[in-house]
């Protein structure tokens, strides 16, 4: 068969071509020293990490690989040992994480606040008010559409707490107006825009969100809308392989004057997205 040499040539060429693409065109080699941080969608989607991580890397040479998930999922990722550090926003869940022994210390880092987003047409008549609990009660009375994250994220936990204070049993309301979508903050905002529904969002994601359509801030400024972020490094007693020293370096840096300044410096259109408060008692 005369085709034989050509055949092997073809095969060799194909092989070399494919592996060539596999290796030669690989992105610049990632630095050897890295940590994995499980964090929330708000810190990632708002662009905060793009702003602060290069500063941390320049100082320490450590690359930070961020997995952005809802707070509940991020904590579970760390519980399985798949992250070295968690940086999330649900105080009660974080304290439980420490209590279970997955971390030895939770440190407050920064805060911002939640805002109630709604359609301009304001079907529940709550726009411009400050009392979030009264606003939620009105939404329920009018059965105005409300989108819930429904993904065990920090924002979802905060929303459920507020409904509880309002005395509304959301579990019994699912369906007609209370719509659980089980997705991240951005997806929830996209959905609310399309449905003309109310939704609770952290302010940072809202400020950086680009597909607002008819959505506006309906309620803001209530003290109960406070949103605290905390950082914890994973306890090596639970997962011996975690990078304790480098993880601690990152947590130390976030709570140091330098890291705190980097957080405060991050702005979109002149608006500060996160307010550093490391070391504040009870935060």
């Amino acid at each position, binding site marked *: *068969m005369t*085709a034989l040499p*050509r*055949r092997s040539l*073809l095969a060799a060429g194909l*092989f070399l071509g*494919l*592996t060539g*693409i*596999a290796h030669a*065109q*690989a*992105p*610049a080699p*990632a630095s050897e020293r890295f940590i*994995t941080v499980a964090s929330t*969608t708000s810190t*990632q*989607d708002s662009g905060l*990490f*793009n702003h602060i991580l290069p500063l941390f890397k320049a100082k320490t040479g450590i690359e930070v*690989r*961020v*997995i*952005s998930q809802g707070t509940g999922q991020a904590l579970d990722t760390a519980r*399985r*040992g*798949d992250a070295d550090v968690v940086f999330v926003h649900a105080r009660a869940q974080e304290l439980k994480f420490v209590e279970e022994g997955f971390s030895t210390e939770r440190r407050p880092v920064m805060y911002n606040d939640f805002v109630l987003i709604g359609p301009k047409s304001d079907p529940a008549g709550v726009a411009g008010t400050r009392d979030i609990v009264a606003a939620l009660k009105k939404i329920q009375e009018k059965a105005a559409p409300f989108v819930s994250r429904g993904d065990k994220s920090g924002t979802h936990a905060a929303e459920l707490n507020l409904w509880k204070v309002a005395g509304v049993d959301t579990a019994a309301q699912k369906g007609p107006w209370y719509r659980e979508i089980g*997705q*991240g*903050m*951005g*997806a929830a*905002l*996209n959905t609310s825009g399309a449905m003309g529904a109310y939704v609770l969002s952290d302010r940072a994601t809202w400020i*950086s*969100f*680009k*597909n*607002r359509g008819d959505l506006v801030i309906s309620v803001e400024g209530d003290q109960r809308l406070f949103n605290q972020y905390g950082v914890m490094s994973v306890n090596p007693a639970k*997962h011996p*392989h975690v990078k304790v020293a480098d993880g601690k370096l990152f947590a130390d840096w976030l709570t140091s004057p330098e890291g705190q300044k980097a957080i405060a410096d991050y702005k979109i259109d002149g608006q500060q997205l996160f307010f550093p408060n490391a070391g504040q008692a009870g935060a």
Partner: protein
Amino acid sequence: MDVGAIFQAAFALVVGLDPGFLGIVFLSLRVTLTAVLIAALIGLPLGAALALARFPGRAAIIVCLNALMGLPPVVAGLAVFLLLSRSGPLGPLGLLFTPTAMIIAQVILVLPIVIALTRQVIEDLWSEYRDHLRSVGLDGLRAIPTLLFDGRFALATALLAGFGRASAEVGAVLIVGGNIAGYTRTMTTAITLETSKGDLPLALGLGLVLLSLTLAINAIAFGASRIGARYAG
């Protein structure tokens, strides 16, 4: 939404040659093409062997492989995730949230397509040329290299189908890769991220670039097979 904004976003991405964007494109190609290559190295001989061999349970295996062509990517991703997680059986390898994990997940998605389509192609060829091949002394498994070579154009289409499945999917790579910026972010996970950030023109612009790449790779494969057909007759 303004259609012009989509093309503008796509154009800016390509013309700007932003290193972050190029990294995403290269990683997508690297993961997908490596997965297809591995699936081809395993799947072509295995599919051909399955076409020629006769053994009890063969029909059941063929049906299962055909069904696996419809395996939901998110299920494959979840299985690989649980396998590679630090709390899973292969945890000590530390492969979760790496490009290697993404390649593994995509091999699982592409392999059934390559095996099932190869089996069909080779079985048809075998029934056509069986007598001829036997007369030149090629029987049973020894006929596999010749059959694979003779079916190369149909098999190239099988590999392209596998490539299409791998390059288009987001469910598996998102779960096992973690969409880490500059490390495991691919075209499809970047599209997902930009959608959730509400930057729909950029998301669709990325989609346009991905489609163009797929088109280019298919055009290259088509051209190569044309040239091959002319010379190798």
